[in-house]
């Protein structure tokens, strides 16, 4: 039995119970709108603010498995991998060890990328930037992230993330899908599949990308990262673009105003209902509905993108870049607007974190891109009462090495890829505020206590959403495929309320 069969079966029951009523009228009734008034209808329900949420629909039966602490997720993915030494993992002791050789016992046979495996020396490069204790919690945060420092009490720094991959493509694929191999669903798709939709006009999983200023040619991204893999295609992330057309083919063609389009859709529906009556195929009814949803999206998406209702004070919080479409700052603001509209999973990808060389100058720029908008998003969500049930995550696909890659001077150094430990920051959605999880060694190179594998993080995100990661599965290649992989993984319950 596949999903399709089951949905048909359920529909048929409704169908049969309604026997005696004409098929056309069933179809029309099930659509729930009157074509005559549809054209004038305002599809965004403003009566309840922006939230037109009803009960979630379309999810799997039996979900959530337990009471969730988060309903929605914003994942601020820092693509290219930011260094933990310049963000959240304070290692003051390294200054004394500057330029000394990293002890072999610390490297401990770790595999290296082809970029530094030929290096004859592995000199320790301490961070050039100072750290300060922030918030009431006194969490150490780099001076490169002053704004995130101000919201550090809202969340938890995990210092002991670790991964299995050491190159970007497999590592980011691993982060997004739980596997380094292609073909698996991304986490947003899993969540959309499991929990269904909370809104009527927008996709469940939306994605935005931006380009950093720190590295001209950052690591590229790929559709696979928000794909649906073996799950039905409707769960894949919909990329919201900064171009004139935020969603592909959203705009009517030139010369086709909304009133003409509305009339076309009415005619199309009339004809499709003839087909429905003749074939009794529920797919026809679905198709009619999808055309109407498409029409609503044509209003809902521009409304989402239209910032004219944002007060200047709010725009100011996100920083000057918010005025430029396609920037990280703009995307952060849009993320908040999506969350207000109950989009289930929002993911931003900010490219340009890959500081193999010139780390101090490049990383300063990347932090400037992202620090203020990320912090603004968190506080903005909180002011609107949305942070409590929205999980916000900031982090990249792996860490950077403590030893220098390439040129090492007073002013500059670089760091290679490092999978064994790195830091991320999580806030809201039930995360205990003002906490730090996990301890790394004095070199920031190995985990000493409380390691968090990428698949553990997946389990944690799902747990916050009320999902037992072991139970959200789909048969694939003879396995019960899970976002959290095949090994035993655990949600990090200590960081959740």
């Amino acid at each position: 039995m596949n999903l399709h069969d089951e949905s048909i079966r359920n529909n048929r029951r409704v169908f049969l119970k309604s026997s005696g009523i004409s098929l056309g009228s069933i179809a029309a009734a099930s659509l729930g709108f009157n074509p005559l008034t549809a054209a004038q209808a305002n599809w965004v329900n403003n009566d309840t603010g922006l939230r037109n949420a009803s009960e979630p629909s379309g999810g799997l039966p039996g979900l959530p498995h337990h009471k969730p602490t988060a309903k929605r997720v914003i994942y601020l993915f820092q693509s290219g991998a930011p260094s933990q030494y310049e963000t959240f993992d304070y290692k003051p002791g390294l200054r004394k060890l500057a330029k000394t050789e990293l002890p072999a016992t610390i490297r401990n046979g770790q595999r290296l990328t082809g970029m530094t495996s030929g290096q004859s020396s592995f000199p320790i490069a301490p961070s050039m930037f100072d750290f300060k204790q922030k918030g009431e919690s006194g969490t150490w945060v780099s001076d490169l992230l002053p704004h995130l420092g101000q919201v550090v009490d809202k969340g938890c720094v995990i210092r002991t993330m670790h991964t299995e991959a050491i190159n970007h493509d497999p590592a980011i694929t691993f982060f997004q899908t739980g596997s380094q191999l292609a073909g698996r669903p991304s986490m947003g798709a899993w969540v959309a599949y499991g929990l269904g939709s909370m809104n009527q006009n927008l996709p469940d999983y939306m994605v935005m990308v931006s380009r950093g200023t720190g590295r001209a040619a950052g690591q590229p991204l790929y559709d696979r990262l928000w794909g649906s893999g073996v799950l039905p295609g409707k769960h894949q992330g919909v990329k919201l673009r900064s171009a004139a057309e935020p969603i592909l083919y959203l705009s009517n063609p030139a010369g086709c105003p909304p009133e003409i389009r509305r009339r076309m859709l009415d005619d199309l529906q009339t004809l499709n209902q003839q087909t429905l009556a003749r074939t009794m195929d529920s797919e026809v009814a679905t198709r009619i509905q999808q055309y109407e949803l498409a029409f609503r999206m044509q209003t809902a998406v521009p409304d989402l993108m239209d910032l004219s209702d944002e007060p200047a004070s709010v725009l100011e919080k996100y920083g000057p870049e918010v005025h430029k479409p396609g920037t990280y700052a703009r995307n952060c603001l849009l993320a908040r607007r999506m969350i207000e509209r109950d989009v289930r999973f929002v993911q931003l990808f900010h490219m340009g974190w890959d500081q193999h060389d010139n780390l101090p100058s490049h990383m300063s720029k990347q932090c400037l891109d992202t620090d203020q908008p990320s912090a603004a998003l968190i506080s903005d969500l909180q002011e609107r009462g949305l942070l409590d049930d929205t999980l916000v995550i900031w982090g990249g696909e792996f860490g950077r090495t403590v030893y220098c890659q390439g040129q090492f001077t007073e002013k500059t150094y670089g760091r290679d890829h490092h999978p064994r430990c790195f830091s991320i920051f999580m806030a809201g959605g039930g995360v205990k505020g003002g906490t730090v999880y996990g301890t790394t060694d004095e070199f920031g190179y190995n985990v000493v206590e409380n390691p968090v594998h990428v698949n553990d993080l997946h389990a944690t995100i799902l747990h916050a959403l009320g999902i037992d990661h072991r139970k959200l599965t789909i048969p694939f290649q003879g396995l019960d495929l899970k976002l959290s992989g095949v090994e035993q993984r655990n949600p990090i319950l200590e960081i959740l309320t």
Partner: protein
Amino acid sequence: MTSDVTSGRSNVSCRPNVPCRPNVSCRPNVWFYAVRCVLAAKENRISLFVLLACITCNEFLFNGFTAVAWGQDINFRQQIQPILAKKCYACHGPDSTHREAELRLDQEDSAKGQAITAGDADNSELMVRILSTDVQSVMPPPESGHSLTPTEIETLRKWINQGAPWQQHWAFDPISKQELPKVVQFADGAGAKNEIDRFIYRSIQAAGLQPSPTAEKHTLIRRAYLDLIGLPPTFEQVQAFVNDTRPVAFEKVIDELLASPQYGEQMAVSWLDAARFADTNGYQNDFYRSMWPWRDWVINAFNQNLSYDQFIIQQIAGDLLPAPSNDQMIATGFNRNNRSVTEGGSIEEEWQVENCIDRVETTAASFLGLTLGCARCHDHKYDPISQKEFYQFYAFFNNVDEKGVYNERRGNTEPLLSVPTATQIAALEQLQSRIAGLKAKITPAATSTTELLNQWRSQNSTAGQDSLPSPIFVAKLTPEVKTLGMSPAGPSLQLTGQPDSVALPSPPDFLFKNDQAFSWSAWITGDSRGAIFGQMDESDAYRGVDGIILGDGRVKIHLISQWRTDAIAVISKVSLPKDQWTFITATYDGAGKASGYKLYFNGKKVNVEVDIDALNGPISPKVLFKIGQRSQSELFSGQLADFRLYDQLLSDDHIVRSMKHAVVANYDSNLPQPSQDYSAAQEVATQFINSLEHQSITQKIGELQVEIDKQKSQQQTTMIMRDRPEYRETYLLRRGQYDQPETSEPLWPAIPKALPQLTAQQPNNRLGLARWMVDERNPLVARIAVNRAWYKFFKRGLVESVDNFGRQGAPPTHPELLDWLADDFRKSGWDLKRLHKQIMSSATYQQSSNLTEEFAALDPANQWLARGPRHRLGGEQIRDLALSISGLLQNKMGGPSVRPYQPDGLWEELAGGANDGPYKHEVGPDLYRRSLYTYRKRTVSHPTVASFDAPSWEICQVKRSITNTPLQSLALLNDVTYVEAARNLAQQMLHQAAQNKPNAAQVAQENSVAQAIEFGFQSTVLRKPTIIELDTLTNGYQQYLTYYQANPDQAEALTKIGESKSDTSLSTTQLAAMTSVASILLNLDEVITKE
């Protein structure tokens, strides 16, 4: 994607590999049981009335029919094994590492020995544990996430009480010959058209259903066109068929379509999915590659009806066939379509393994229907495939001559085959004839040989022989078993690559060390391959030293402490000259760097490529020094002579003088006696000296050769399979990790034991594997093939899990038909066109697809096939259909992929426009080619097809989902592709109306409008519109026209969309209004659906 709108009904047909949701009782089984029940009822004379009552009972239909009540036999395969597989095998199955209590429920002996007492459910531990209320002992354990439904428990109980009869998994049984079922007659006179129907009707009858009437003729011909060529017929073609009342009318249509070149294009679409074909290499850089010659091979193979066994053999092992043709080599590109890594810093070995695993998974999924990939990290949890067997199967593919990482490399990577154009071939032939002319000038010059020998002789005596360094070892090459030949330096050995080394009575008393200088030399013929010498321990990470000749004649020298991580490997950039002797010398300075290990051909230093330069550890192996091989491998074939080893670094001068000395000495030693040896020595010396003598000509030849190489490099290439000259050892990889090989046991290619084994005629290489696949003992391949053909037409396989014939897959709904078709297919010579015709000729295929309430109730998923298929078309087909109806479609076949319209900036957003530059759509006819030819960039899918569930071609996919989303609606309404198509269709519609009404002004009149719309409707939907349909569109047209007459600038804007020129002879406002009508037509459910 949102709320209740899509919650229940939207889309979601089966995504590949998603046969079933856990914890949902499997309806196929219930149904199968119902059929068995009815069949059995006849024999047991159970009242048919009771059965019918049962069948119409809602409880039976929807809540699961409990077999227990009816006292019928439980079917192990259909009812028991699926339960055990899904709920129990994870801990009590084939995977030995996760097996609990040593209990196997996949094996009869173990199950009955420990958990099942046949005939006594109450005393079977299995039942006791299942029914236990104790959390500690209940099975399945709660933490497994699995639980048994009451129906499943009762089914198990009943089965055990019936004696627990056991059967092997159906798919591993040999394909059996099937008796044709008796002809079934239905009340309304529906009759079987061919054998297929006899099987299908039996099940339809058993399910209490009636077959549907034959589809209306316009529907039927459209279905046939879409299925076979992926394009709709024209209205004229439909009419001709409707009017053709001959009984053979439909057969004629099928035959025409099978002969059409578009047949191959349509058939290729799904094969390209399985073969993960794309135009880029797929990981983050995603550079262009050109594999389109392979894609064209596939299209041609279908069109020429290449037999399916050859289709398999050529793709898996075309390169290993005797004297393979170019086509057969191109076919092997199937296994080069995998993604390949170019990301700087990636680890070679890691991706070598990934590439190989991809080939295993793709080959197993596409031909065997097995999910072998599961056994990469551990024994398969459900199917009888151990981890070791996985790596034995992997060994078939582990010797491909490629690297794991091509650092930032663009374009195709080796192994390659050139597919030159006619012009290129001519240019090459010209160069080759010039080379032949030059070669003819090289004539034996006996006098100059003598003179030169004299010169060398006097040089030697002047310098004094004593000043030449003495070798510490000279191989005495005189074993009796070897054939002896003559080299310029004396007797030579002719070796044949057989595993018997040259006996060395006294091996050299020398220890190879990384800080010890040494040199060696030998005389080798140009056709030689394999190790000249070796003292290398393959079982100790290849520690040691060797000098080998690669398959392409290049010389490779190694100093290894640990292979790849701690080694020096240097390869000559030139190959040994063909048809002549070469004096090879290698010198090592003892400094531990690749730059200190030098190669000389005939006394001249040759340029080398450094493969590895990372030697630190000791290189002294604990194995014997050997000539003509390493310790175990790289057996030499060809001729070699006069191997010498020195414990010092030879100078350039030493090397030249040694060479001359050896030639003179050999010549002189044979001089006095007019023997056979003498003439041989004379000849070989003359040839050798000539080759040195005519160096200016040789140089010119070399230059021409370079020119040839240059021209060849500009030729179109395609990636092919070719095995490495050196055998790459295969080991089990612990946890599937590339860096955790189980080196204690080298593995050789082999078939998993649960399947028939290779025969003596099937070598254990890819060719043997390919022949094994099409061997009649193979139970899987023919079943997979016919099931996939069935799926093509019905969008539902006889085995629903088209991609998985293992125990986790669905059992066949019609096992007898599946076997009958498979058997018949093989006996017919694996004839695909015949199979397709056979299916289409059945009454089953030709049924109407309309639903009735009865069907909706009794068989919503249409597994009993009492009605025809109805499903949305694929993304390629929908676009092709719009282009075809609007007259824009270009029928040009093959060649490089093309770029149709695509929204601006898509590539740049993700890849920064790197690699391929910004996307620019074609201008001219290539804009309107069939979607099969659309450029496939793996990391940024083309939205026109991707929105309609086309895969991203990263991994093998044999089944596409059929979803139904608002993004599809937006694409069909707003994408320039479809707006332009609508406008072109509208132009035809208006012209049609004008033809009937010569006065153009009259076109605006309602009557003409109706005619135009009727024409458009017929062109698109291929039937006459109903009155409601016509009225709706005609009224709509008037509304649009009113608007565009008031807003002519909008009309202007709409009709300008697309590269094709707008027809200025038509009124723009009318054209705009009619374009809106045409757009509706192209969006109709009936148009984008196959009925």
